[in-house]
């Protein structure tokens, strides 16, 4: 819970200034190349979405053939799943962060973008952009630490309900978009009197409106096109949605829960300066290593450290920022948590299973 390195304020400010320089350099070099990137990404994503849905219908005449039918409908729903992953992560999440606002393009702007997810963009902007990105890993303030249902840090008090957390974890993975959708509903705040049921009910209505449209699309309108075979289309669309849920859950859990990540107390951040915030973002985030395609499919959240240092930097520039940030961290002796998907997700799962039981502090702290 304390900072793993001792840094005097002057050194920390120099560290922060170097981080700022990375952002300044990259922002100054934004231009046509970046605009082409996001426009092409959007075109590819929309093309995949249409192709996936058409492939699902193309499988229906093959129904009597058994295996070929399964292969084609599987390919269709997988393609649709990839489209949904790109839409939510590399496109939606990043546009809603304001990463592309610099283009001054009204059709690609954080103020108007809505994504293919049951969580309304305006609520996401509050729960994620404001709360999580400002209070990253501050216990009691960052509601993304275990999403208020999982015990992911030994300082969170154990409760018998935690025994079930391997099950909650699996359910959250499958239904991740629904967890995200109700995440801005502040249940703790209602208990403590910070907010009221009336205020929170407005948000729930927003979720219901958005969810109604999303469900109509995937589970009524598109299946209707298949006539008597509607059930197959419902199944394929459900698979695509779940594939997106599990993938985004996995990437997001790897951002802040792997071994070696640091958590903070409100006292730690009471007098926080800008460079203190930058240091906390670096210590509280974890990167995942992989190839170019993997980074795109993760929405470049595999560069979680850079995403937290520069939330509104266009994601296609994170790899380049990461090389510089990593080198800066090495020079200042700041731990830079980066590992394979297996390592990051494996230690995350181990923590979730271990902390279902009481305790769990000692050996973890020793490892960190």
């Amino acid at each position, binding site marked *: 819970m304390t900072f793993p390195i001792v840094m005097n304020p002057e050194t920390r400010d120099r560290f922060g200034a170097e981080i700022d320089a990375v952002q300044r350099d990259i922002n100054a070099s934004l231009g046509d190349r970046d605009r082409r990137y996001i426009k092409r990404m959007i075109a590819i994503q929309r093309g995949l979405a249409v192709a996936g849905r058409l492939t699902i219908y193309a499988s229906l005449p093959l129904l009597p053939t058994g295996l070929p039918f399964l292969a084609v409908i599987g390919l269709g729903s997988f393609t649709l799943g990839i489209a949904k992953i790109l839409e939510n992560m590399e496109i939606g999440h990043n546009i809603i962060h304001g990463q592309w606002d610099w*283009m*001054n393009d009204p059709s690609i702007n954080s103020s108007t973008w809505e994504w293919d997810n049951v969580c309304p963009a305006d609520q996401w902007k509050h729960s994620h952009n*404001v709360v999580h990105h400002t209070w990253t890993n501050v216990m009691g303030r960052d509601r993304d630490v275990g999403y208020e249902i999982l015990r992911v840090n030994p300082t969170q008090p154990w409760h018998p309900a935690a025994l079930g957390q391997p099950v909650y974890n699996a359910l959250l993975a499958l239904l991740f978009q629904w967890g995200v959708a109700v995440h801005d509903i502040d249940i703790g705040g209602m208990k403590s009197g910070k907010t009221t049921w009336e205020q929170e009910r407005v948000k729930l209505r927003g979720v219901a409106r958005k969810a109604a449209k*999303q469900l109509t*699309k995937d589970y009524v309108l598109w299946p209707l096109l298949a006539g008597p075979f509607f059930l197959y289309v419902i199944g394929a669309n459900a698979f695509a949605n779940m594939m997106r849920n599990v993938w985004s859950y996995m990437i997001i859990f790897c951002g802040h829960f792997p071994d070696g990540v640091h958590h903070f107390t409100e006292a730690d951040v009471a007098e926080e300066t800008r460079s203190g915030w930058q240091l906390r973002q670096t210590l509280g985030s974890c990167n995942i290593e992989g190839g170019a395609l993997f980074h795109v499919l993760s929405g470049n959240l595999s560069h979680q450290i850079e995403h937290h240092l520069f939330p509104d930097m266009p994601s296609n520039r994170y790899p380049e920022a990461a090389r510089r940030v990593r080198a800066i961290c090495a020079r200042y002796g700041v731990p830079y948590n980066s590992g394979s998907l297996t390592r990051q997700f494996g230690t995350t799962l181990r923590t979730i299973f271990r902390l279902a039981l009481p305790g769990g502090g000692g050996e973890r702290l020793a490892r960190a």
Partner: protein
Amino acid sequence: MAVPQSRSVWSRILDVASLAATPLAPSHYLELVSPLRATHTLNARVEAVHDEGDGTRTLTLRPGRGFRSHRAGQYVRVGAAINGRVVTRTFSISSSPDRRDGCIAITVKATPDGKLSRFLVHDVRPGAYLTIAQAQGSFVQPEGAPVRPLFVTAGSGITPVMSMIRTFVARGTMPDAVHVHYARTGETALFATELASVAAAHPRYRYVLVTTREGHGARARFDRAALDALVPDWQSREAWACGPQGMLDAVEACFAAAGRAQHLHLEAFHAKLAPRDAKATGGRVRFGLSRADVEANGQTSLLEVAEAAGIQAAHGCRMGICHSCDVTMVSGCVRDLRTGAEVNEPGIRVQICVHAAAGNVDLAL
């Protein structure tokens, strides 16, 4: 409010069907294969470019479905991405709404500090797509009783008047008109050949070209004496003037002094950009929607300025990361407190928690 009863069954069916594309609209997909058929945004394809000389070009644009024609004299907003950033400016349409091919033409002069005008004149190629908006503007001929118009134009300020004259020609409704046009030289005068032939074919249209750099001496600039000499009956005419601000000011003063201000229609053709002054610190901040107008210094964020003025502005992190406080800047100039960069692009969204006034600012807050 829409009147639900008047909506056809068909349009309701379309509404439900378009849910298949939620959270987008079918138009977002259609745009990828056919940009002119998009309805969520209005695109135009550059069909042809024609060099008018003197750093001026006429672009023929085919507007997308949904463009509702225009009236002669109106202008249209045109946008293009330059170095990745969308820049939009307004340009008068120089073609007649009676064009058979459904296209519109804009005639653009590249100005030294004109980002978009330089792009349109030097870089744009046929086949490129631009964004446009519906035509707007009240610089038009009255639809009812015919009038005897006087046109006073200078430089590329001739474009909206050109649309009017072409419309008179196309419709065979040429009125008794006098057109005084100011150009630097006879060679650089826009549309001079076409207008000379219009004058030859239509005796009721008189074209007076005044060149300001060659030979016209005292009459080379607009003033009362020059107008009296060129158009003795100007006081019995309805006037339309378009050109640089200096000329418009002179025309306006002349008409006001003669008590004819209500017979004068003006159109400025330069976007009024706030100066980007590296030394400017602070200025007057107008919060248009909150009806507040306050003085701000160059160090205080606009969010704090708004709060001090009693305005409850939406905000989140207060450190420039969450974009909850973004507000549209109607006009003016602001400075990024983190980088010191000045921004004066009208219509841009500004993170008010990390920007301060660098001159006067008008915010939609």
